[in-house]
């Protein structure tokens, strides 16, 4: 029991502990957006999932890839050598350096809050992570953007589509999270 409590504490600490406050973090993210808009275009992430899909598929099954007008349009010239893709490539790179520099690298499978509600079975968490990831990108592509493209870039440009998307996103995420983690009636 002590062992388990300790392990839980360890992951919990690593999982939740920000080292940069919301003020500095928010300003840094805002500056990234402003620099990107000054140099190239607003930031976005979810399109690059399609681009990577397209380029990988085009390498293995070029005929199948070319049959999708959506893939062909997103992945112009079937190349990854673009500002947009390298921006997305930079995200895990910067994150890895930040996690290393602050000794917050962790290989925990089951997050603390998930464990509290659904138990410590890693298979369960992984299956739902896949399903959730599917919904995230299906929704993001359907809506033409994600938290970066719609919420940060889009709302900053006062785009109506981004305000509508962000409102629907938060409404649905708040209801789902409160239901999932059993907050109703508390």
């Amino acid at each position, binding site marked *: 029991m002590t062992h388990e409590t300790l392990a839980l504490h360890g992951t919990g600490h690593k*999982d*939740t502990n*920000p080292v940069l*406050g919301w003020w*500095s*973090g*928010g300003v840094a993210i*805002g*500056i*990234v*957006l*402003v620099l990107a*808009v*000054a*140099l*190239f275009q607003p930031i976005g992430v979810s399109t690059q*999932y*399609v681009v990577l899909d397209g380029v990988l*598929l085009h390498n293995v099954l070029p005929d199948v890839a070319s049959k999708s007008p959506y893939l062909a349009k997103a992945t112009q010239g079937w190349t990854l*050598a673009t*500002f947009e*893709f*390298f*921006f*997305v*490539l*930079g*995200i*895990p790179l910067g*994150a*890895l350096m*930040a996690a290393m520099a602050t000794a917050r690298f962790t290989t925990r*499978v089951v*997050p603390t809050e998930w464990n509290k509600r659904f138990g410590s079975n*890693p298979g369960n*968490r992984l299956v739902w992570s896949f399903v*959730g*990831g*599917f919904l*995230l*990108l*299906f*929704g993001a592509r359907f809506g*033409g953007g*994600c*938290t970066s493209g719609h919420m940060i*870039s889009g*709302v*900053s*440009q*006062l*785009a*109506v589509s981004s305000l*509508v998307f962000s409102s*629907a*996103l938060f*409404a*649905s*995420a708040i209801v789902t999270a*409160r239901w999932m983690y059993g907050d109703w009636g508390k």
Partner: protein
Amino acid sequence: MMDLIAGLALGALFGAALQLSGASSHTKITQALRLKDLTIIKLIVVAIGVGLIGVHLLDLSGWAHMKVKDLYLPGIVVAGLIFGVGFAVTGYCPGTALVAAAEGKPDAWVTVLGGMFGALVFAFMFPDLETFLFSFGEYGPVTIHGLLGIQGAILAIPLGGFCLWLAARLPGSGGAQ
């Protein structure tokens, strides 16, 4: 070549900021969505506040490369609702899943794989969905200031200031400030 290096550097700055602010933490995200710890909401609101002011100041100077997404109803609402469920279930978004994966979290690796699969399925369903949902309620890349017929900065700068004020006023977590 320069644009690739600039992209990588800006992306790395973005990834590092998200990581250090706790945006890749399932716990922080789900607690924000359950309205128990608003740190991540404050983070997003500050980023939007800085973005509103910065982007529209750039626009006034003529240096901004704006790119406004099309509005199509009801498609964009349905899309947001689907995304929201995925956000609550995984505790990640497409960007922070990459951050969490780089931090070593295996559930985030699986989220990225699920995301690649979801994006692929969407790509092949697109021709059918397009005729179904995008054929009506299509308004193009509309903005609020465009609808009002005013300069964006007139609206964006006070609104940006309001975001920064709001972020400061929202209750904190008692954690890292």
